[in-house]
């Protein structure tokens, strides 16, 4: 419980799937409380005892189904069931009583749908709930509208419910657009980072060879350390130490043989291939998630310049607003790209220098505007011959 609450408070660190799970667990806790409260309230509803017991039994079964789906890690299905459950509860209240609190249930059901922040769920279920709410208001107006009420109060009930729906629809639409754009940038940036880390891996590999240090996965001391630590954790978690050692042996075997050969090998069982495939992202002999996380961890402790608001701006327009300085910047960048090693070649050697055509594509292609202004691109095109003649690859 303590761990769960800690995860709730630190949701900003968790990936989407984890957050979805937390959301559905919170909704389930909320629905459990509401269902428990419903039992005494249902005594006053207009249903017969049999129907009341039957519906409550159905709620309990559906609740159990949600719990099973969560256990099976079918979170999306559990989300859908929890929404249907809250709509079911709303209907149970609104068809059993015409009291004011039944009207509140439409807002509660809408909030549960909003909570998941899924556009399509909101469009489908949110619209249904709002529609049902409006229908309820129209058909139960005698109970909702008081004798001395203000004129047109029924329309106020309807409008407030509809407005509540619309405001959150706008919010969800805005978030959807914002998060999609941000996600695109994030994924693109991660691809670029992967390329940097491909190069970093090659450099570090060369560096280790220069220092005549064995590679980590070939170092027996390293292997022994991993072995002992894994067994130690295995003992604490009551997992079979043998199973863990087998997984580690497989891990080392993938380094030796390569994942492709293991997957092709018909003598290896399907479950072992699955495990190998999952271990693949943690290998140490190429740029993997494991390598990225190790490098990122270490780079935290390398000195870096102080934060300023332009730290992540790589657009030349941010460097200088003066035309002559922008020309100098363009010239320097062109010269760097034409003469320096900026990546690995097809033999995975850090020897690749860009060609004239590639640089031209970088300066004029669809992604150029991330770095250059349209006027800088035009300037480059007009003076391409000077760039090539004076700043191109040194002979």
């Amino acid at each position, binding site marked *: 419980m303590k761990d769960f609450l800690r995860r709730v408070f630190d949701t900003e660190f968790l990936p989407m799937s984890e957050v979805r799970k937390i959301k559905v667990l919170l909704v389930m806790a909320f629905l459990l409380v509401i269902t428990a409260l419903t039992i005494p309230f249902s005594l006053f509803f207009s249903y017969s005892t049999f129907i009341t017991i039957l519906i409550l039994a159905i709620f309990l079964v559906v609740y159990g189904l949600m719990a099973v789906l969560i256990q099976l890690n079918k979170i999306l299905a559990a989300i859908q069931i929890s929404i249907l459950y809250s709509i079911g509860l709303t209907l149970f209240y609104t068809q059993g009583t015409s009291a004011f*609190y039944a009207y509140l249930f439409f807002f509660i059901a809408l*909030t549960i749908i909003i909570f998941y922040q899924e556009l399509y769920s909101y469009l489908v279920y949110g619209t249904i709930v709002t529609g049902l709410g409006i229908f309820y208001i129209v058909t139960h107006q005698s109970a909702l509208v008081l004798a001395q009420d203000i004129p047109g109060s029924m329309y106020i009930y309807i409008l407030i419910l509809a407005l509540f729906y619309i405001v959150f629809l706008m919010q969800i639409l805005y978030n959807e657009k914002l998060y999609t754009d941000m996600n695109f940038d994030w994924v693109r940036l991660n691809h670029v980072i992967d390329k940097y880390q491909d190069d970093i891996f090659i450099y570090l590999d060369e560096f280790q060879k220069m220092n005549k240090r064995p590679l980590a996965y070939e170092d027996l001391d390293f292997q022994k350390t991993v072995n002992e630590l894994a067994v130690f954790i295995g003992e604490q978690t009551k997992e079979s130490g043998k*199973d863990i050692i087998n997984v580690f042996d497989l891990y080392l075997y993938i380094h030796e043989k390569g994942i492709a050969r293991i997957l092709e090998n018909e003598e290896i069982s399907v479950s072992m291939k699955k495990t190998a495939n999952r271990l693949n992202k943690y290998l140490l002999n190429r740029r993997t998630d494991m390598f990225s996380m190790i490098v990122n961890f270490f780079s935290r402790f390398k000195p870096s310049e102080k934060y300023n608001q332009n730290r992540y701006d790589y657009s030349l327009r941010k460097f200088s607003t003066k035309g002559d300085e922008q020309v100098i910047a363009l010239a320097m960048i062109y010269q760097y790209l034409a003469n320096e090693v900026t990546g690995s070649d097809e033999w995975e050697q850090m020897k690749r220098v860009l060609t004239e055509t590639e640089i031209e594509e970088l300066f004029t292609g669809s992604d150029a505007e991330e770095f250059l202004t349209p006027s800088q691109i035009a300037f480059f095109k007009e003076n391409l011959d000077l760039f090539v003649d004076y700043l191109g690859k040194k002979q």
Partner: protein
Amino acid sequence: MPKNKSYMFAEIADYREALEIKHLRTRNIFVVILMVFVMVFTLVYMLVSGFDLKQTISLLVGFLFVIIFNMSGLAYGRENYRFYQLNKYVTTLGIYVLTISIVFIFQSPSAITALFIAYAVSAFYQDLKVILISNLFLLFSVVMFMLNFPEYVNMQNSSLQDQIGIGIFFLAFVLILTISSYIIVKQKQFFYNQIALSRETEFRNLDLLIDLQKQVHDEDVDIESYYRRTKEFLEAFSKRLGIENAFHNKMQILLAMEKGEKKSTLGDKYPEFAKEDMDSLEELLIGARHKLRKTALKMSHTIDIDVKKREMFSETHFKSFNHQTDSLEIKIIAFVVFYAALKRGMDGFPELAEKTIHDALVSTDYFYYIDPRVMRIYQKNSEVFDTISKDILGKKVSS
């Protein structure tokens, strides 16, 4: 160990704030539009229904105050972002005051749910402080109306169970709204954090690439050659335009800066260049870890980047040792390989003490990259981990 987790890179908090401010303006515009809509609806209804003109005008003034204040805040916000922040608090207070006034003027249970609209509008900011203020207002208003003005919440002539029902479900609604808003704000922060984390990772990876290039190849960019060739290019360009070469002094200053000469000394030598001019020129340096060099490196790595639709919102880009699809054995192996690699050290990086590793693992986002069961064992037994690895790897790392 601090209770609140932080990010491995301190810069993430700064950039996240910059992202918040960037999007706050758009959210503010949405809120103004919603306010105008609510104002128009309320006033049209009051005029048509024949409400007292004084009350109608009072509400109009109230709405106009909040809207005009917002618009001024939006205008000044371009100069100082704190105006955007002021806007969100003033709007939240304003919209609740206006809504409570509406409930008092209408004196009808139909108006009480307008408080939910106030909540919905302020929730648009997706800000924890705003949510807190909004929750307090909503709770206070609901309790106040239930206790002191039961007729406004349809409680006066209701049966006991109805009164209990109204009380309970109002509170239940406030509760689910609070939980919902809290998690939604946190989810937004997750997106901002991921972007910020990737930006900082990129920044540090570029630094690392430059450093490694120097260490492995034992050579750096040939500054003299760069400046000689750029000068020739600029001369040819000036000649083409038929003008005098106006770049000469700037090139001299840049070359001197590359060689380590201080800006203050250069300022004395070139009095026509103010401090701001020197700062601007400094951005154009190509040596060491300067920004222009990083830009060139970044450009060279953006060739052939193709983002596929299926990658959007996919968790394959979220690097962790706690993937739901992995078995516990795999999670254990992933963690111990990671830990042993940190203890073993890496050429080109500083050696890390156990305390440094421990603090970073348990107090930063790395905590969430590791299965909670594995992390619990590490936290309880970090000394055992340290001893085992020291015994085998023979490192002289300080604890």
